[in-house]
């Protein structure tokens, strides 16, 4: 059996805000070329974990090793190099509203490369073509729909051809058709470019469709409670927290806590 190459290793990671422990001693690996989906209920620490992994937040303890370099204790130069190797799509797309889509994408290419403007122009056109936005380079983000803004955000995140792409709440706030289109785009990009993807989401349809592997976080457990392929977890897990998530079953509330509309 072919051994999978590890690209990111998370070791004994603990995050806390004051006395409030979000998660502790979390350990996992991200394998090269996989789509890893981190799931869990609101408040379980998914976004905190993502922020630590992309270097926006320092953990209380632990390490995040990218190809052997710990980005938590990394100096600014090492962190800068790491940032050139990752791309992030934030929940809202986070496109700079004062710039056109082209200017948004030009920014990292101008900052981190010494390419001619004509070459940068070609790269931008290619990436926009990849996300089905060819021709939209001179539009402002406010002129695009939510789904198009997300796709433009993906194009910007891919501008530097990152080795790892992180997505925070990939299809949040999108209609089902647009969400499916976005899922297809993720699969297509992963298959064509082999880019490793770490996705935080709780959209079940999306999870079943795109995830190679799922890690499930839980607030009470302060860490992961399950790992595996989404369908395997759905069918085989005996943990009620996992099955209730994958079967969309809400634990019944006691009668006295229910409110009826008469």
């Amino acid at each position, binding site marked *: 059996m072919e051994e999978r190459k590890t690209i990111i290793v998370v070791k004994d990671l603990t995050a806390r805000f004051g006395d409030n422990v979000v998660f502790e001693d979390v350990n996992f690996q991200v394998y090269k070329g996989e789509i890893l989906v981190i799931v869990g209920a609101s408040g379980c620490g998914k976004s905190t974990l993502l922020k630590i992994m992309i270097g926006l937040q320092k953990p209380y303890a632990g390490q995040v090793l990218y190809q052997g370099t710990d980005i938590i204790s990394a100096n600014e130069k090492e962190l800068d*190099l790491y940032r*050139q190797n990752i791309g992030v799509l934030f929940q809202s797309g986070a496109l700079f*509203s*004062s710039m*056109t889509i082209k200017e948004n994408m030009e920014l990292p*290419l101008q900052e*981190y*490369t*010494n*390419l*001619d403007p004509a*070459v940068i122009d*070609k*790269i931008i*056109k*290619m*990436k*926009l*073509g*990849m996300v089905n936005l*060819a*021709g*939209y*380079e*001179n*539009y402002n*983000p*406010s002129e695009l729909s939510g789904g198009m803004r997300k796709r433009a955000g993906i194009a910007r995140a*891919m501008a*530097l*051809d990152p080795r790892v792409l992180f997505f925070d709440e990939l299809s949040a706030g999108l209609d089902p058709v647009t969400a499916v289109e976005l899922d297809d785009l993720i699969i297509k*990009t992963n*298959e*064509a*470019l*082999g880019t490793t993807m770490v996705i935080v989401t709780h959209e079940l349809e999306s999870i079943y469709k795109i995830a190679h592997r799922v890690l499930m976080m839980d607030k009470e457990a302060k860490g992961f409670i399950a790992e595996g392929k989404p369908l395997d977890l759905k069918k085989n897990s005996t943990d009620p927290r996992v099955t209730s998530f994958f079967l969309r079953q809400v634990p019944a509330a006691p009668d006295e806590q229910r409110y009826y509309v008469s």
Partner: protein
Amino acid sequence: MTTQTQKDSPERYTISYKREDLNLFIYLAGEFGLKNLAAFNSDINREIFRQKLNSVTIDFSEICYLDSAAALALVQIRKDAVAQDIPCQLVNLNDEAKGIFSVIHEDALNHPPFKSVQDDDDFIRRVGQSSLYIMRDFKNFVTFIGDLMVAILYIIRHPKTLRWKDVLFYVQRAGVDGLPIVAVIGALMGLIIAFMSFLQLKMIGANIYVPSLVSFAMIKELGPIMTAILVAGRSGSAYAAEIGTMAVNEEVDALNTMGFDSVRFLAVPKVLATIIVLPILTVYADFFGIIGGMIIGVTSLDLTIKTYITQSIKNIKVFDIVTSLIKAGVFAALIASIGCQKGFQVRSGAQDVGKFTTSAVVAAIFLIVVADSIFAIMFYYI
């Protein structure tokens, strides 16, 4: 066979060239990506176009990393070679490389933009556009003042509909929180006027007029105008930014769809609070201006505190104080109205918020000076 190796880049590559008659074989090995794109692109181009060739073959069998930007550059190299009548083929691509080449679509590369970039250098167009903006701004301001008047009339008829809690909140923000800076600026202004006038008046032995000059200048002009400018900077900008951010977050739309009049809900409390606090802040600034002047009077003019105060109030009439307060009230209405109106003009994004916040302060200061000039002429004839 000749070989070129690049070691400086984080992505290291080796390119070997082999010539058989006029056929060039290029063997790529190592990592080819965005970081070394410029280098390998010029290496390969130089080799291909430095002599006449019958064909070029680029071999990918030793490549261990290729990204889409590098693939695009290699596609462009092939295109350029073909354009020079040199057949060029890419061979021994593994599945990964084939996948990467599959994302390059000629249609996307040659797709004309749906929207062209406007030429900002066109002087006549810019003048025309600016004129239209000014006319539109003026129309918006007049419309807003109309809406504000209607809202205020409604509140006069239905006082319970006013959110007094909000009024008190903005009284605190614009007034109480602004007391320290108004006091410091007022005292320093009084001190400067006293010192400058002392330097001039001592030459003709008229030092005794310094206190009345300071109090007259502070109460008649400097107190209201200086306080108004401070409030425009502190509160006018805050009103524009607050309403602007609410507009971006669709909170203003939410208010309207819930049946609230956004002007009555958001602007009226701010306008009323500013009209309440600015006259009070003006009196406060006048007081500290006189105190500032007194420091010079007592330390440099050898006047007693009692003499200084007597001299200060000697030439001040009730009319001067009343007109000063009227001016402060009008300035307050202008500052708050323009701040709120600019906030409502924000449509999208952080840049719009910044633009209209700046515009609110500039417009408020301009209107304060214009109104002050009108008051100066008006009060002269009263």
